[in-house]
């Protein structure tokens, strides 16, 4: 795997899955204008076909698709192509959508009405190893780490593996502090914050035994 910094926009391949034509057109336009190599799909079937022919560097997918749910697509890609960065496309950026995507392997989200420059910047950051996390998603996660918040609502999420430091970082983000402020408060380097956030995303992923076995078999097959 080459370092993300060395990739130019043309080398970054993107698979965009969105069933609403105007939205698909808008997002594709923004990404293509930014110079990315974009493949588009309007259904789960098209997306799978595209994946079979080419594994993208980045997968951007809507969740409600005509022939299935984007969550399944994210899970598949995450298992088969661990190097592919995944983001969910959401109309409202609500935790209902975003968290369920995070638990299967997505790293953050893009708002469907985001400005083209923001969309391109988000993808570039993602490839560069910066996993953005919004205040409302951070808020949702840290509220879940508090035992008093009952009964659990919204999508299931397991926060047990988060370290106290990671929870502190999430609190900082949820309260609107910048990375620099969080780093100062917690006595750490600003550069280490994105790494922690990446780690948070990975820890929130649900790994069932079956998936682990599946992954092992996949890797075993590759080795054979």
């Amino acid at each position, binding site marked *: 795997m080459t370092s993300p910094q060395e990739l130019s926009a043309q080398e970054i391949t993107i698979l965009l899955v969105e069933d609403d034509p105007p939205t698909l*057109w808008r997002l594709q336009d923004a990404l293509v204008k930014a110079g990315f190599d974009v493949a588009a799909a309007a259904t789960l079937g098209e997306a799978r076909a595209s994946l079979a022919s080419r594994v993208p560097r980045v997968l951007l997918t809507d969740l409600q698709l005509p022939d299935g749910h984007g969550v399944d697509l994210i899970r598949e890609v995450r298992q088969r192509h661990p190097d592919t960065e995944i983001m969910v496309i959401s109309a409202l*950026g609500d935790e209902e959508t975003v968290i369920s995507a995070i638990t299967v392997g997505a790293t953050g989200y893009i708002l469907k*009405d985001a400005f083209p420059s923001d969309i391109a910047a988000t993808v570039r950051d993602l490839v560069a190893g910066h996993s953005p996390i919004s*205040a409302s998603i951070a*808020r*949702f996660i840290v509220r879940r780490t508090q035992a008093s918040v009952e009964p659990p609502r*919204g999508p299931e999420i397991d926060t047990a593996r988060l370290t106290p430091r990671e929870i502190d970082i999430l609190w900082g983000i*949820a309260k609107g502090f910048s990375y620099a*402020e969080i780093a100062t408060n917690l006595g750490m380097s600003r550069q280490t914050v994105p790494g922690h956030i990446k780690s948070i995303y990975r820890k929130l992923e649900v790994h069932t035994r079956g998936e682990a076995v599946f992954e092992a078999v996949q890797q075993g097959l590759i080795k054979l």
Partner: protein
Amino acid sequence: MTDGAVKPAATAAPALRGRGTASRLVQYILLQVLIAIVCIVLLRLPLPRPPDQLAVGGFSVADRGESRQVALPDFVPSRLSMSEPAIFTGHFAWSARENGRAWSVYLPRFTNGVVVLVNGVEILDSRRDPAANRADRATPEIGLIPASLLRDGDNEVSVQLFVWGPIPGFLDKVYAGPDESLRSYYEWRTLLFVTLPIMFSAWQGMLAVILFVMWAVRRGEAAYGVLAVAMALGAMQAFLPTAIDQPTFPELSATLLASAPLESACVLAFGILFFTRKWPRLLGPLIFLPGLTMVLIGMFGDPYAVRQSFLVLGIPALAVHLLIMGIIVAWSEMRKQDAPSLLLGCAVTIVLTTLTHDMAQVAGLIPDHRIFYTRISYSAMLVAIGVGLTWRFAQALNRVDGFAAHLAIQLREAEEKLKASFAREQERERAAALARERARLMRDLHDGLGGQLVSIVALSERNTAGAGIGDAARAALKDLRLVIDSMDDIGGDLMLALASWRDRAAAQLRPHEIALDWHAVPPGLPVYPSLRPWHVIQIIRILDEAVTNAVKHASARRIGVSIETVKATSGECGCITVTDDGEGFVPDGTGKPSSRGLRNMKNRAARCGAELELSSGSGGTTVRLQLPRRFPEGDATAS
């Protein structure tokens, strides 16, 4: 190192405790010795006696054919037959001048029965007085001499002493003189040796009743039942007459004689049950053996054997029981250090001392006046038992009170907890309902309205003419997100809502190339338990309005948002300030907001109980929102 330091400390503690017990034991023993000494001193105090010139002198005794001169007090050997009294004959002088004054014969102490004759005429037969027939009660007798019997000059007084052993017969000095001189001595002795024992026996009877009731109500406490039996035995034997010579019911007589060892066995059984809370199944019944043996002897043996058995079995049994009791009580006192143990321990010492004293008297080890104090000293035991029981009762009441108070406190605490938990539950229910509603709304909006608005935005971007439509659709989306976001349970932490707003505002400002300087001064805003979703919407809309004004009308390049807790007149409160570096506007002279947007901001602030300050000039505009200490419950100022 640490191990070495800890170990000596660990072993030192029991050693210290052991030393404490040892010193307590020494103290206890010293106290008992002191009590014994005091007892002996008191026992050796001579009883008051009439003046010696009233004593009848010149006594001779005729006992079973033998005759001799004696000086009273004197002993005669024990015998089997009641028909062979020893006859003591003495003389006293009476003058006719004394005529008109009553004269009496006073016998302070004798065992076992006397018939007194003055000048050959019987004036007194003690055998008819049941109290006088008991060897253990030093009953005195006084007999008024009929005036007609008295002769001027020498008078003869004859005392027939009946002995029904087991101990030798005894006759103390006999006094003859004016009744007025002798009566008070007689009364004093009667009080001490007759009335007082009866009083204590009555007290013992009461104790028996109380203990029976106690045992009847609390069947588990066998100790009280056993003690009740002991008390009943003691009370009974005091009031039943002692049979002399050939009793009508020999079994009854034997039981009476055996009552003392039986009673002491019962008291010991009580001690064992009460203080050790265990009954030794093998050795326990042994303590009743002497008493029961005596009953058997009484039923099948002759009267003499019965009486001998009292000396051989009864007294040693009594002593052994007392000793065991003393040890048990001392052990209990060492362990618990409570009032009943100490009192009973002292009482046991008193009884043991007097018993030893009485036995030493009988054995001739100390001068014998035939005054037996054991039965009287037993009253100390009764007092100790009474006090101990009352103490226990009071303690139990105290514990019950304490327990009740404790229970009341616990009940109150539980009630409060329940109330709090109920309130919490309600709050949780409310939050859950809100969350469910929000999730439902979100799903609906996401699938429907949200997607459609996004499509509008996308379509409007295809041609430049649709720019206005796109902006409107984007604004609608933004507002939709605000509404959904504000419904989230943020636990009164406004910072959480502001942070989400920051993300949205930054996204809104980025295409306009306006920088958003976000400055939250740690620790940010205080937590507001009174904060409700509609407050959040109002506050965020005020901030939105401020930002929108800066973008649309002021052509600002930077917008600063600062969040801090400030010290106001009413205490600490949260404050949000939005500043821009735009052109500003001039508020009209009346101080009213110059546009509908500004008036809206004021209204919204008022509805949340917040204060809005606007200042604008050429350097830009500052909107300062000072939050209340407590957000209003209802939307009172809503129009």
